[in-house]
């Protein structure tokens, strides 16, 4: 039997189907909602959603054209672009799907020794966790080497002087396995996206002591990445898809819709999980401390400075070569121009710049945008570092050196 090539699926009417890959995560909400509510159909975009069990599948299927787009962690999109884990495939990121939503979840025993961040007694989680990690070697799980979770967790631990690989072992544990791994004490904790921290809590095997926002208060999370080939061949469909997503992002960010979205995502063909566990991390859900953000605060804009932050962290942890020109790379992949072309006629306020200084706002602030400025949430890194895209750290700097310099900066401020 001859298997038809999956690289091109052209419909009878000449328009290409947009096949979007997703994982079983709460922040799949904007894509699932846009599909189920017919937002894509309203824009005449023919979409097929494909739920995948692993990031590896998402990356391989993008690389070989079995998927056209995906909800993806940005470091993995860069890995596909560079061919770091297989064949290279040019990717574009014209839209950001979510911010925050990850949790650091520990076994109940360990969590008992580590007060949850922002807890009533005023003690912070990180110093207590650092003490535990120095006392005995433990293993923490992350979802993929090229994940936001790996980079955020490393950054957080480094800010307390804990170096991953030296003081603590990081292992890749798929979130659907993390509950079992916690129960069997194969790992002492894990950093994963919602709803898996809540799933572990409900299973009685773990407790979340911190979320993305304790590491980077408005940490960008999933990006909508599309194969550059597909985008070039279907510019109108891509613009339509972005308009549909933007409608959906607004819908998903409204607290009133949380219960509805949770029940939609809980269906067997999507997350196939308890809707209450999903509800917890939705805007308006019960756990406001670690909820996902889908729209407010210019979340959907593909900030080049955020792409560059991910790349600089990938370089910091030797996940990419020192020889790569990060700025050129981020300009090729992160595409605010496509975002603007698609959405400027939609009454959406557009940031004036493509870059911003990350981690520079200890309080709420106002972003220059047209036609109206955008109200922005606090934006801070756990170590007080300020990431200015104009001044990248020099090549070959080790993690601990960066840590030391960040501390020096703190003293200087």
């Amino acid at each position, binding site marked *: 039997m001859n298997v038809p*090539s999956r690289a091109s699926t052209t419909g009878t009417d000449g328009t290409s189907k947009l096949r979007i890959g997703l994982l079983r995560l709460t922040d799949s909400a904007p894509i699932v909602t846009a599909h189920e509510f017919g937002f894509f159909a309203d824009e005449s975009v023919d979409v097929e959603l494909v739920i995948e*069990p692993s990031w590896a599948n998402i990356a*391989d299927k993008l690389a070989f054209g079995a998927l056209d787009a995906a909800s993806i962690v940005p470091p993995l999109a860069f890995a596909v672009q560079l061919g770091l884990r*297989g064949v290279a495939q040019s990717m574009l990121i014209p839209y950001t799907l979510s911010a925050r939503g990850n949790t650091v979840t520990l076994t109940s025993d360990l969590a008992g020794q580590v007060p949850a961040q922002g807890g009533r007694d005023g003690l912070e989680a990180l110093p207590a966790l650092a003490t535990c990690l120095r006392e005995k070697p433990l293993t923490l799980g992350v979802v993929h080497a090229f994940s936001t979770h790996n980079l955020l967790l490393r950054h957080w631990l480094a800010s307390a002087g804990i170096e991953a690989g030296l003081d603590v072992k990081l292992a890749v544990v798929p979130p659907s396995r993390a509950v079992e791994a916690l129960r069997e004490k194969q790992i002492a904790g894990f950093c994963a996206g919602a709803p898996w921290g809540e799933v572990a809590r409900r299973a009685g095997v773990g407790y979340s002591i911190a979320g993305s926002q304790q590491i980077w208060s408005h940490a960008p999370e999933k990006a909508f990445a599309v194969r550059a080939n597909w985008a070039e061949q279907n510019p109108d469909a891509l613009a339509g898809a972005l308009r549909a997503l933007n409608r959906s992002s607004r819908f998903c960010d409204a607290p009133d819709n949380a219960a509805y979205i949770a029940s939609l995502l809980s269906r067997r063909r999507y997350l196939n999980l308890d809707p209450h566990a999903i509800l917890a991390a939705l805007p308006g859900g019960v756990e406001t401390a670690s909820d996902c953000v889908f729209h407010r605060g210019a979340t959907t804009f593909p900030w080049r400075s955020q792409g560059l932050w991910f790349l600089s962290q990938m370089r910091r942890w030797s996940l990419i070569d020192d020889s790569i020109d990060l700025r050129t790379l981020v300009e090729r992949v992160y595409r605010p121009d496509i975002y603007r072309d698609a959405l400027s006629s939609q009454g959406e306020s557009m940031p004036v710049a493509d870059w911003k200084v990350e981690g520079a706002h200890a309080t709420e602030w106002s972003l220059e945008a047209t036609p109206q400025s955008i109200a922005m949430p606090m934006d801070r890194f756990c170590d007080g570092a300020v990431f200015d895209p104009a001044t990248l750290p020099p090549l070959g700097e080790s993690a601990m050196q960066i840590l030391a310099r960040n501390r020096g900066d703190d003293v200087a401020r």
Partner: protein
Amino acid sequence: MSLKILLIDTDAGRARALEEILCESGFAQVWRVPEGAGRIAAIERIQPDVIIVDMAIPDRDALEDLRVVSSGHPIVMFAGSGDPAFAEEAIAAGVCSYNLSGVPLQDIKPIMASAIAVFRRLRQVEDELAEARALLEERRLMERAKAMLMQGRRMTEPEAYRWLQKTAMNQNRRLAEVVATFVSQHDMPADPGKAKRKQP
């Protein structure tokens, strides 16, 4: 050179079938590891040259980490194969492989071709089974719709059938679709999975 081949599959029967084919072809060192705990330990113990893995398992992400942590740099087999059509076939069949020790492509290709064939065969059976199930479900819904019309609207069975057929024709929709909508509107509460089906 005798290659060490490790098979990781959710389907024990399929893995056994593939092992048989590979052994018959002279690959003596084949291991099967079921989905579940101990996969990573098995890899570290066996140190296979090639891993054939079912794409339906979430553990692929953990397998990839081995490449990052180990000093040798295992690569996805598809990488540099110069044969994207072959990789596409494998992905369509739902199987992929990792080449951990730089085995030449011509040695891996027949192994992967066998895996693709075995996976495709099972996929075909699964598709046929799903199709049969869908037909059964259509039939069940039809019976249910007819019973509801017979009881609720006092129709005879042929009348009920004709009513459904006519509705489908008027709405220009498939009969099975109309039946499913009718049953879900008149029979199923909001959550069909959990709620008890009430009698009309």
